[in-house]
């Protein structure tokens, strides 16, 4: 893999809009999770909701794309100066030479859920103002982002459940390596909807309290929503010291079960080892691991075994899902950006809500923030269908 530089990032979730809001919440140990009051959902659970989306509208020339997911995407593109930075890069390379690779799990499905409540009483038709291609279809998020930014290069959506927006980095890196594009906007956007709330409820995986990763009493996830974006470019032959780099990528499948991880974390091990191998690094080169850490009994137990098998019990690890909730298709890039902020601001996030670490788990799990200078971070994302992706991020020397 040719080295990839990460030039710009942008992040929005229940902790706030922007890099500074996110890192401030981590420093001040604030969680964004609160009891569920979303739409018409009646469920005993907590969610990580982005405020203000109900009043927000997408740019008027893209009106047909107006839905919660694309609103959050636009908010992300307006945050941290991201859209402006992309415009500058488009001047440099040309709009046709910049790819758009977006991850999402449920796209604008909320529009379809609402439309099904307003079907024509006599013929069952969906309302006339329902725009399938621009909202429901998974591609809509890449289509919207590409149009919003005025880009003209290759564009598609990766939808592999909760690994989606980690995998976008792999696709973009390969596209640049093959010369199909010179730079890429990668991102992940997933928003609250009834399908995921009632779906995870049916699997009995929703915690009634803010989720508690690694806790002996952990009892499920808290669903959140968020957007994250990164601008990727080919790295220079000798990148300037401090340049944020995508060092390694690992991808694998569990080949085990649709909604339960492999009990010994076999797929997770392959994915983490793949990231180390592409980066040509050893386990002790990694300073911190941002876990997938969903706070389900099964995920944390299986991931712990996999991490311990490769890294042993010294490397500090934690999950930030107690802060943000599980952002599903946006989790991968959100946690990759948190990792980049942790390197930049020299703070490793301690887990929120976790009180008593499960004695059966063996990794060095951080309950409190740790101020330390770190160079390389691994971040894990695992999804339904047994889809795994690990990213290794770090700064150039």
């Amino acid at each position: 893999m040719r080295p990839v530089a990460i030039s710009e990032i942008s992040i929005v979730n229940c902790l706030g809009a922007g890099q500074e809001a996110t890192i401030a919440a981590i420093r001040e140990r604030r969680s964004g999770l609160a009891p569920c009051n979303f739409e018409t959902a009646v469920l005993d659970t907590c969610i990580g909701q982005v405020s203000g989306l109900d009043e927000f509208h997408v740019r008027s020339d893209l009106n047909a794309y107006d839905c919660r997911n694309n609103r959050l995407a636009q908010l992300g593109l307006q945050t941290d100066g991201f859209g402006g930075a992309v415009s500058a890069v488009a001047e440099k390379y040309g709009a046709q030479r910049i790819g758009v690779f977006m991850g999402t799990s449920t796209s604008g499905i909320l529009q379809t859920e609402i439309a099904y409540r307003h079907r024509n009483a006599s013929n069952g038709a969906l309302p006339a103002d329902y725009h399938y291609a621009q909202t429901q279809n998974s591609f809509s998020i890449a289509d919207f982002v590409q149009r919003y930014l005025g880009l003209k290069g290759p564009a598609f959506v990766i939808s592999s459940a909760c690994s989606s927006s980690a995998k976008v980095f792999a696709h973009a890196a390969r596209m640049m390596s093959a010369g199909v594009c010179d730079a890429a906007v990668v991102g992940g956007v997933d928003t609250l909807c009834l399908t995921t709330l009632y779906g995870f409820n049916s699997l009995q995986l929703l915690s009634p309290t803010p989720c508690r990763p690694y806790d002996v009493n952990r009892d499920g996830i808290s669903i959140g929503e968020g957007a994250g974006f990164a601008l990727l470019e080919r790295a220079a032959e000798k990148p300037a010291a401090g340049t944020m780099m995508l060092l390694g990528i690992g991808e694998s499948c569990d080949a085990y079960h649709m909604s339960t991880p492999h009990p010994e974390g076999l797929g997770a091990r392959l994915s983490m080892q793949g990231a180390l191998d592409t980066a040509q690094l050893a386990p002790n080169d990694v300073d911190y691991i941002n876990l997938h850490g969903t706070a389900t009994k099964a995920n944390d137990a299986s991931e712990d075994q996999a991490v311990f098998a490769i890294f042993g019990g010294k490397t500090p690890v934690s999950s930030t899902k107690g802060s943000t909730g599980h952002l599903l298709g946006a989790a991968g890039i959100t946690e990759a950006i948190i990792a980049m902020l942790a390197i930049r601001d020299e703070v490793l996030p301690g887990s929120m809500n976790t009180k008593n670490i499960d004695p059966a788990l063996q990794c060095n799990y951080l309950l409190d923030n740790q101020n330390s200078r770190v160079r390389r971070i691994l971040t894990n994302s695992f999804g339904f269908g047994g889809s795994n992706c690990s990213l290794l991020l770090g700064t150039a020397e």
Partner: protein
Amino acid sequence: MMQIFVEGVGLVGPGLCGWQASQPLLAGAASYVHTPTVVTASDLLPSAERRRVGIPVKLAIAAGCEALLHAARDAATTASVFTSSQGDGENLHQICETLASTERNISPTRFHNSVHNAAAGYWSIATRSRKPSTSLCGHDSSFAAGLLDAAVQVIVDTDPVVLIAYDQAYPEPLHTVRPINASFGVALVMTPQATSKSFAVLEISFELRQESETRMQDSSLEALRSGVPAARSLPLLSKLARKEAATVFIDCAAGNQLRIAVTPCC
């Protein structure tokens, strides 16, 4: 330009019962007779999973297995790229009906089948493959997105890849807003170097649209091509069946296209 080799094809669709059986009509040597798509759940799936899968998963596994058999290649050691314009439309419809009712409890199976990568998940379970796998969507350009991504992966990772594209018609009321004509699945096994099984070389370029999309001569096959995103593959399959050098154009999003120079080999 990216050069890759094709060593296996799988196909299932209306009037198209496998690549081997469909080659004469795709080559123009036999006439097309419409019959509904016939697809069953793969015996490779454990019995519990076999009962749970929808049409899109059956399409994907059937096409993928035929292509790998043709290539004499083990799925467990082959990376995969899945692409679909929508995933399981019947399942989405059932979930949205349930959520619009007063009793909102959707079944766990419906929920895990709702992910766009359901076919990839069941594929890995059926074939025991832990190799990298991805699941893409490009709306009408889903096949082109998958072919581009699979070719890039073959070139960059220098490993064989099976590309599997599939689509299913939505039930009403979604069919009216997103008409898809038929259930269709196609798979291509691609390698970075020629092997004893290679029968064609593809030179693929991603470029600004300069030519109109290649169409099918037969009107029924053309209706299938334009009516199902995964069937945008038909002109490429037709050239492969004819065993003639030719160039195929397939539209991509944002005014781009794939230029695919097909040359028989070996």
